[in-house]
């Protein structure tokens, strides 16, 4: 056991911290403080400018190889960057569904042509990717998707509907699961597609999430012809009919450490501890300490996971436990925030917005009920 950082890692941290401080100040100055939500049209545009600033100096995707726009940072350095990112109070990543969910699958399943044509543009926020998995009748039961794709000369014809697509109304591209074998059932016969949202026959309709922001979209496919070369390197990721395996690899990233780095929660917990100290109520102060411990425990468990991963292990079903922890932690933190604000918690503001957003955590990326099933069956080995 060695819980110290190397000299090189400390230098990396200092460099990241310095860059974030300077550039956040500049970006905020340009955008009236940069407080508009990235899940609104206006805020999204501001956040894209932030993303391009990150990319220009090589901080958008630190752990990616340089050829794809990263700086080849180790997992440890990535973790350090994430810590510094949230400590600096930098904004949520509007590119996250691309860089954190889709990209790991493209690295694993993509052809060299797909990698070369997609990743760099994604990192630079030129192409903005959203997820097309859920359908009105396929949520937790993802394998029951019915949207379909039919092979035709030079491409595919897509029909069906996707929904709950985060930031779909502002994105340019979609990655999703379609049934390519009409006689197939469940996990078989699904193909993983990559497509531009301006494909004729594709209609995107944004709608309000719980907090009212247009953060959700539903996407309709109406005899939409998707040419084989609509995306560099081809529109199918992995093998045709092999989409389930690709999707499960993506789901592993979504549930695990890539989407929700602990830095976010620790920073929120620290702010709540400060608020509780100001407030003075001993019960709230104790709750704040408990919430801080839960956030810090996540901060400790993450290096334990990274140690396992750097020893060559692949992310496994333990990611389900991680997802349960951070999502329930986020609710705990923001519920405490409401209690600290008292009767004024009902005001529109950053805390009430974050409270509403925290409630999505136990639902998206596989509901927590599904995660508990996975943890019980695949971590504990209980019978199916």
């Amino acid at each position, binding site marked *: 056991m060695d819980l110290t950082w190397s000299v090189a890692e400390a230098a990396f941290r200092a460099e990241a911290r310095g860059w974030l401080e300077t550039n956040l100040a500049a970006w905020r100055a340009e955008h009236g403080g940069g407080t508009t939500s990235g899940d609104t049209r206006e805020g999204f545009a501001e956040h894209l400018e932030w993303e391009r600033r990150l990319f220009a100096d090589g901080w958008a995707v630190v752990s990616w190889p340089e050829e794809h726009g990263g700086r080849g940072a180790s997992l440890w350095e990535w973790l350090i960057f994430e810590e510094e990112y949230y400590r600096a109070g930098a904004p949520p990543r509007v590119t996250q569904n691309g860089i954190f969910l889709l990209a790991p699958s493209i690295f694993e399943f993509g052809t060299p042509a797909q990698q070369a044509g997609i990743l760099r543009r994604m990192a630079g926020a030129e192409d903005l990717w959203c997820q097309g998995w859920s359908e009105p009748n396929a949520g937790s039961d993802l394998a029951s998707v019915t949207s379909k794709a039919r092979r035709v000369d030079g491409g595919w014809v897509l029909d069906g509907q996707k929904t709950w697509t985060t930031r779909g109304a502002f994105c340019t591209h979609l990655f999703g699961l379609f049934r390519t074998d009409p006689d197939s059932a469940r996990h078989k016969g699904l193909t993983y597609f990559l497509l531009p949202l301006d494909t004729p026959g594709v209609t995107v309709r944004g709608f309000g999430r719980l907090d009212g922001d247009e953060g959700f979209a539903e996407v309709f496919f109406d005899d939409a012809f998707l040419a084989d070369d609509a995306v560099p390197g081809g529109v199918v990721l992995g093998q045709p009919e092999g989409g389930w395996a690709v999707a499960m690899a993506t789901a592993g990233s979504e549930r695990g450490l890539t989407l929700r780095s602990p830095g976010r929660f620790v920073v929120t917990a620290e702010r709540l501890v400060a608020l509780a100290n100001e407030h003075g109520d001993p019960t709230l102060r104790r709750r704040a*300490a408990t919430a*801080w411990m839960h956030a810090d425990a996540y901060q400790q468990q993450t290096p334990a996971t990274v140690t396992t991963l750097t020893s060559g292990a692949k992310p496994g079903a333990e990611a389900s436990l991680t997802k349960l922890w951070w999502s329930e932690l986020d609710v705990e933190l923001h519920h405490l925030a409401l209690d600290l604000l008292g009767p004024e918690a009902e005001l529109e503001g950053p805390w009430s917005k974050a409270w509403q957003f925290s409630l999505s955590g136990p639902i998206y990326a596989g509901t927590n009920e599904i995660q508990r099933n996975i943890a019980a069956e695949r971590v504990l080995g209980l019978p199916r």
Partner: protein
Amino acid sequence: MRFSLSDDQVAFRDAVRELLAKEATPAVVRAAWDAPEGALDRGVWDSLDAMGVLGVLVPEADGGLGLDETFLVPILEEAGRVALPHPIVETAMVAAPLIGATTGMIASDLGGPLVPCAADADQLLLRWGHTLALADRDAVELTAAATVDGARRAAYVTHDSTGEPLTDDPAVIALALDRGALGSAAMLVGLGQAMLDLTVGYVTERQQFGAPIGSFQAVKHHLADAALALEFARPAVWRAAWSVAHDERTRGRDVSMAKAMASDAAELVGRKALQCHGAIGYTVEADLHLYLKRTWALARAWGDTAHHTDRVADALGD
């Protein structure tokens, strides 16, 4: 950065695990419930001593292994896993580094007013005003206490004096208390793991409605919650071991967090384990109660969750 046990730490822990599996069986724990005062069987204790476990924190020059808390904590998890009745936290974690030697079995009142194995120990490490002192068992008066966990073998200790103090340095005493809290946190993680493993085994075997009850979602969710609590308590305990070993500035905070989280996790696992066992768990015939009752005791010894949470709050407020 490497947040995992080293090969040496794993090898040592596994050797202790193997020993305890043979020599600290549920039958041995049950025997500790029934043995007369002062007559706790020392078979497994002597084996642990022979292996060097009691002197992990004692310098090599003084006959110990000269290792630190990151070695001892995984071993104490193993002691928790078998609900070891002997005062291993008091002896190996608290007294040995304080005395700088291993001097037999030591009980202590530092963890609370009920002193486990008080009549069985060779000496007692006692708080006397603002000092710590070692007292011979014959020099103090013991009043046996009927505890829920019979293997605690606890007594109240009264004494007029304690002889020569070991220390009156508040920093040394604070470190001893932190070590006790850390050691009991490690035991609690082990107890939690034991109860979870026992329950996973039970719900996989037990059939109702023509299926193993572990296939039912309600049961799965109980045990996923139990696994979740342990998954996040254990790194907190290991980190605290590191902080104590390296005298980090955050030592007190880290230890208190470890104890609070381990106590809460083990108690949660205990509740889930009992519920999933059903009626058989609500008996003294099934082994579950051996772990459950120790958990209740240790969750409140060496400072309860409220105490340690407030200590974390104080540290964060500074």
